[in-house]
């Protein structure tokens, strides 16, 4: 923990360590260490045509060292090592980083492209505390429900399809392999069992949490496998090992492109999702290169390239004009705020309920992690 003399306070009065933001931009330090999701930082070393790093390096003189993390939790762990300057944190990681004092507030004035970012992404609970921005939005997406069109008939419209204990697709249902998936169950319960009183799937008190865990334990019997990476998921749907389950839009597109008969919906209950934020380490060794990077990656061109390559909605309004596929922003609902209104972005569950309740204690992420272990059995 860090000093807590009133850097601000979050849900339930949790205090935020006081960390100074960078006041002015100086010269680059020559390199920058980044933690990112796979596909966010491509330097052409794998595919020459996929490169939005080289130009940055030559323009700024900052050499990019990138470390790919597989999950949000890994990102947090990596950032805690203090070896990295910048991270592309999802909402379930960002608050942990903020409250852990691992990241610094961002001086948005130093980031020229910040003004072009969709307003719907700015100053959100997962990237700002008390109106102080802790990061630069990168892009967003929803965890959609994917299914095999040739097998799953009629097309599902509700998450109920994956929580049905008598599902005809028992053994072929898939779910995302992370404790945060408990929120998907909570989201479903929010609509199917309103008397539980769930207001926010990331703020679960004991009863609500137990209900979600019970639902997931039940679901486990119907699960074929849990997934965490693209290749595994695409392949499972193509081969037919999985026919129904959570997915990302990009996976849907990939599978379709490879000729798999799949489709995806945003079910009636809405969905969980992510909105990623570039954050800068509290004790960054290369803060200037870090700022230069954050500015670069949300520039119209780079942001469009990432969004298209990775398969998500870009954060920069001007990016929609820069994509190769002119329909990209439409496909990914980039400017469709009503679509994203139904999406509960990943947020770190805390003991101080993030929905603002103060009469109960919520389950924190450590509890979610241990519960997830128990769910999988």
């Amino acid at each position: 923990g860090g000093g807590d003399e009133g850097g601000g306070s979050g849900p339930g009065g949790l205090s935020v360590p006081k960390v100074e933001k960078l006041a002015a931009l100086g010269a680059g330090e020559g390199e920058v260490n980044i933690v990112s999701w796979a596909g966010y930082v491509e330097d052409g070393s794998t595919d020459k045509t996929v490169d939005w790093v080289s130009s940055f390096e030559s323009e700024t003189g900052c050499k990019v060292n990138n470390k790919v993390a597989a999950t949000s939790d890994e990102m947090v762990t990596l950032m805690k090592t203090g070896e990295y300057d910048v991270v592309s944190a999802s909402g379930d990681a960002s608050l942990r980083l903020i409250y852990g004092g691992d990241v610094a507030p961002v001086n948005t004035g130093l980031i020229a492209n910040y003004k072009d970012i969709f307003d719907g992404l700015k100053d959100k609970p997962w990237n700002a505390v008390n109106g102080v921005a802790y990061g630069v939005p990168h892009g967003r997406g929803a965890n959609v429900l994917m299914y095999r069109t040739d097998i799953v008939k009629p097309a599902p419209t509700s998450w109920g399809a994956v929580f049905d204990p008598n599902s005809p697709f028992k053994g072929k249902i898939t779910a995302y392999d992370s404790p945060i998936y408990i929120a998907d169950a909570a989201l479903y319960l929010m609509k199917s069992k309103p008397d539980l009183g769930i207001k926010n799937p990331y703020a679960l008190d004991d009863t609500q949490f137990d209900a979600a865990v019970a639902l997931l334990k039940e679901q486990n019997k119907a699960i074929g496998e849990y997934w965490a990476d693209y290749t595994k998921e695409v392949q499972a749907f193509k081969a037919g090992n999985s026919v129904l389950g959570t997915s990302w839009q990009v996976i849907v597109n990939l599978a379709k492109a490879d000729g798999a008969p799949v489709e995806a919906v945003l079910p009636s209950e809405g969905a969980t999702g992510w909105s990623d934020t570039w954050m800068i380490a509290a004790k960054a060794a290369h803060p200037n290169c870090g700022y230069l990077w954050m500015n670069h990656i949300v520039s119209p061109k780079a942001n469009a390239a990432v969004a298209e390559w990775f398969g998500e909605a870009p954060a920069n309004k001007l990016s929609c004009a820069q994509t190769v596929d002119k329909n990209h922003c439409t496909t990914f609902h980039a400017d469709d705020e009503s679509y994203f209104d139904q999406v509960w972005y990943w947020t770190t569950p805390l003991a101080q309920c993030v929905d603002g309740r103060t009469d109960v204690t919520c389950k924190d992420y450590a509890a979610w992690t241990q519960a997830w272990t128990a769910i999988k059995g």
Partner: protein
Amino acid sequence: MHRHPRWQLAGLLAAPVLWLVVAYLGALGVLMVSAFWTVNGFTGGIVREFSLANFRTILGEEVYRTVTLRSVGVAAAVTVICAVVAVPMAFYMAKVASARSRHWLVIAVLTPLWASYLVKAYAWRVLLGNGGPIDSLFGGPGRGPGYGLTATVIVLAYLWLPYMILPIYAGLDRLPDSLLEASADLGARAGHTLRRIVLPLLVPSVAAGSIFTFSLSLGDYITVQIVGGKTQLIGNLVYANIGAAGNLPFAAALATIPVLIMVIYLIAVRRSGALEEL
């Protein structure tokens, strides 16, 4: 040679002991100590105060027992499968094949060690996939084992097989032919010779191979993610808590399980002379 034995010994041992005892055991020791610490749920900061909370959780929740037993079961199954597959192969290589082909067989067995572990695991994902080659072998989509515990055992056995063949082959190579002949001479058929003479004498070699197969299986968390379906092993739990949740103390507490199992295992197999045959 015999002038200053003490100093010679010190010269030989200084660097290795510094490395293995001070650095490695030291690191392990600190890890084991941290198992008694806890982590602050909000900040992820480590609380360096003695606490049995982690162990209480581990002992109290059934899932940890289940996963431990499952992991040991998988490691044991992999070891048995590897031994069963390796013994006849090593026997053929050491005692039946001509000197020439023996040379090539050793190469053939060693080569896969260089193909990436991950790539091989993914190849198995394809093989085991719905309607994949294994399914066809069993008569159609869904007929094969699919992804799950069985697949995990098969793939781990596949990955570690060379580590079992090598020590057994070396052991058989050293086993004088005359012992096998003596057994036949005394009236024993091949099967009997195998059971009464070859296998008992191979115990140290098999045990040596099993150190690889058992420990590598016990600690694996990647293969099981690729072909294990929804299966989780100890490795996954440790990984989920360190790599993912950043809960080093809890991960360390979980890690004591495989450490304990392996230390007991090593002490048990040491008596067979296995440690010298790796």
